[in-house]
């Protein structure tokens, strides 16, 4: 806690009261505060832009749709999903053509989620 002042010497001279902060130092402190806030905000914005903004939290939407493919030898279904789990499955039986669980960790921008499907042309993997 040594202030570094010589005995009887005021640290800020006549420009500030005893124990006060000189105006020049106030300006420096305010500038440093501004630099700190702006730097951290900019850094955070860059991280968010780079990684993608987190999805806006709202009520969870769930639903199911059926696409009957009975009798088809091959088919392609394109599914657009944002964050959440997508479960694609057929009915029952050992000769299951498709039983895939797809999880989208973050919004996929106009990319088709194409699980590798045996016997279906065009599916990636």
């Amino acid at each position, binding site marked *: *806690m040594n202030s570094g002042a010589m005995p009887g010497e005021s640290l800020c001279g006549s420009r500030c009261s005893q124990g006060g902060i000189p105006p020049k130092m106030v300006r420096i402190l305010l500038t440093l505060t501004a630099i700190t806030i702006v730097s*951290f905000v900019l850094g955070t914005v860059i991280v968010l832009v780079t990684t993608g903004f987190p999805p806006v939290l709202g009520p969870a939407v769930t639903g199911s749709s059926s696409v009957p493919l009975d009798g088809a030898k091959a088919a392609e279904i394109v599914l657009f999903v944002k964050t959440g789990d997508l479960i694609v499955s057929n009915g029952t039986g050992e000769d299951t053509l498709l039983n895939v669980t797809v999880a989208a960790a973050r919004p996929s921008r106009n990319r088709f989620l194409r699980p590798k499907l045996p016997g279906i042309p065009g599916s990636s993997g």
Partner: protein
Amino acid sequence: MTQNEQDYIGSLKSALSGTIPDEELQDILSDYTEHFRAGREEGRTDEDLCRALGSPMDVAQEIRASWMVSRAEKNRSCRNIWRAVLATIGLGLLNLIVVLVPFILLTLVLLIILVVGAVCIVFGPVAFVLALLQTAGISFINFWLWPVAGVFFSIGITSLGLLLVIGDYYLARFFYHLGIRWLKWNIRMIRKAEGTA
């Protein structure tokens, strides 16, 4: 209990010598001598005056504490404030809690702020250089997950460090003044309490 002026002044002198400069000690002792003289003129006995003043050891402790606090106020330093705190603690056991504990806690907080600030000042520029190297693609270690953001974060860390160190300095000054006032108030309260006892 000391019964006469000579014994009382002698005890006071031996209790204070070594801690208070001779010149100031002589001033204090002459004040007490004057007090005895004035008392005798009013017809009071030495014994009565000694009883009214209280034990010379207690009086010496109060004088020492007041003098230490006043010296810490004039010459600001760690050593002076520490001596003032120790001298004030000697006035009563309760001061161990109301003076020593806040003093130690405050010193610890100020030290922690100083250390965190110093670490930020050292770490910030290093992180800044690493972020620049990574952004340029010539870094040998992948320090930042997002190098461009790292440039801004490291600037923020450095300025935060400067802010903490400068702020800590002014915070220390502020609490030094506050501490002196607290010690003075404490001594005043003890005097009052002894006066009414």
